[in-house]
């Protein structure tokens, strides 16, 4: 199955955002925007939900904290209680540095892996490109053309891309999803 996309390239991110808003007001489904940097206000214009990545970060951190605390307590109170100069076996203050470090470690490794997995990023992943300049200075507004997409819709997409300041409009036919 082929994946058809209609791509409009902009040089100005403000025009692009205004365009995206207008397209969505006209009930067109903007599939994606591909940009060289994170454009502020774009999430809102595209109507993207807030990322839940930070929630996963909290969960990973809390898990790490629990594992570290349980493990150290188990080692020093039940598995192999050692007497360090008569200090209590469960010496919580002395556990704090490792608890903190392990929490941070778990949260950051977990979050980074989640980010890579959810975004389908891994070493050696090759994706076909919509346009090589989108990592340089061009902002691409992308429509996906399905079988059900009517030709009126396509012409409306093109018209709105043009009127909002897209400098180049092209159709891309990719073997796989980009």
């Amino acid at each position: 199955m082929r994946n058809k996309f209609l791509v409009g390239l902009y040089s100005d991110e403000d025009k692009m955002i205004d365009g995206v808003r207008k397209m969505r007001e006209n009930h067109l489904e903007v599939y994606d925007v591909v940009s060289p940097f994170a454009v502020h206000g774009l999430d809102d214009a595209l109507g993207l939900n807030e990322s839940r990545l930070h929630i996963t970060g909290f969960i990973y951190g809390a898990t790490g904290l629990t594992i570290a605390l349980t493990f150290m307590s188990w080692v020093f109170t039940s598995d192999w209680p050692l007497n360090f100069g008569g200090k209590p076996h469960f010496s919580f203050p002395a556990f704090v540095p490792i608890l903190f470090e392990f929490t941070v470690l778990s949260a950051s490794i977990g979050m980074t892996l989640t980010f890579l997995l959810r975004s389908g990023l891994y070493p050696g992943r090759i994706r076909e490109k919509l346009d090589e300049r989108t990592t340089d200075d061009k902002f691409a507004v992308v429509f996906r053309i399905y079988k059900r997409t009517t030709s009126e819709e396509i012409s409306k997409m093109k018209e709105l891309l043009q009127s909002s300041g897209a400098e180049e409009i092209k159709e891309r036919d990719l073997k796989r999803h980009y």
Partner: protein
Amino acid sequence: MHAESAVRAPLIYGNKTYHQITEDICRPIESKPTRLYLITITFTALLMTWGLFMIGWTVWFGIGTWGLNRTVDWGWDITNFVWWIGIGHAGTLISAILLLFRQKWRMAINRAAEAMTIFAVICAGLFPIFHMGRVWLIFFNLPYPNSRGPLWPNFNSPLLWDVFAISTYFTVSLLFWYTGLIPDIATVRDRAKKKFTKWIYGILSFGWTGSAKHWQRHEALSLVLAGISTPLVLSVHTIVSFDFATSVIPGWHTTIFPPYFVAGAIFSGFAMVLTLMLVARKVMNLQQYITLEHIESMNKIIVLTGSIVGSAYITELFVAWYSGNIYEQYAFANRALGPYWWAYWGMMTCNVISPQLFWVRPLRRSVWFTFFMSIIINCGMWFERFVIIVTSIHRDFIPSSWSYYSPTYVEISIFAGTVGLFLTAFMLFAKTMPVIAMAETKHILRISGDAQKKAAAAHSHSHEDLPGSIQVH
């Protein structure tokens, strides 16, 4: 988009466009290495190889090849370890703390400073690892169900805290640095002409496209990583200072150590960033991105942290006297007037007196003076660690075991080798990766670029002379 006052000096000069930024930052990667580059990297690589050979020598013949003795069992090794870890503090501080404080000037230097952090932590890690002597037993540090009992490592020991702190710091810095690099590597990939370059940057870029949802997650990840790296970076040198502060040695056993070590780490880290970036900026033609504003801002942080370090030295002296403890008093008198007086006064001159010169604005904005000072501070901070470690232990509680320590050529070579390793790694990084965070620089162009600032100033109908109009050199 946030508008920014025209009073604030621009952070990017030269009427840049997005495309121009890509061109400027990718040029060093795409052009052939110069003769100067090849000569320098050959020299640093040889230095590194010599250091690695001497590490091998140490492993083969044992720690007896070092100048350590029964009294002074921590010498150059731990001095260098703490020195390198301190240098490794600037990167994460710049990227994490300055991100939370919304300091836009961090954008020009964060990527290189983070790379520096990673290389510095690698150099630091070598010292305690090889100081263990029987390095093949290093896994004894790890808590794993083993055949020794099961006997676990002592989780109450600051030395084990250090193992956790340094490895966590290294891992988190690496993740932060690399996830930030991914979009910029994708830019290099898309510009690459040769098949091989395209392939290799293709692998390294993880298939980044720049899709809106990916950017959104990327931003969320950066923000949370910055948020948790901030206490992390402060915790690392705090825990390093616990190695000393929790032991009952006069000169070490003080509660001021954690903040004093952290301030010193930032102080030396910024000095090293300046040393490298002042050279890189000149060689790679990045003066329009790393401007005098950036240098001045870093020098202001140097004044702040240098003053904290200076106050800490003086507080230590005061508390030693005020404690009424003769051993504590002797430890400090011996530091200043004993056989290692030269290290103490070297430290005092480099760290307490010299950073105060940065209160003078023209000195803060002088590239040559800053470069000179950055070297002085690096020397001063090395002396500080040497003073803390060696002067505190070389005269212990029994005068019959007092001794004097000086390093052998093996220790000196290993230290020189880590400098070689650090510089080689940094130069390879500078030639293969974008040294300035391109995507982030593009992000602030419309806020902090000079053309945009001028347009905003013209628009504000104000005919007053704005105090922020400074020329770039």
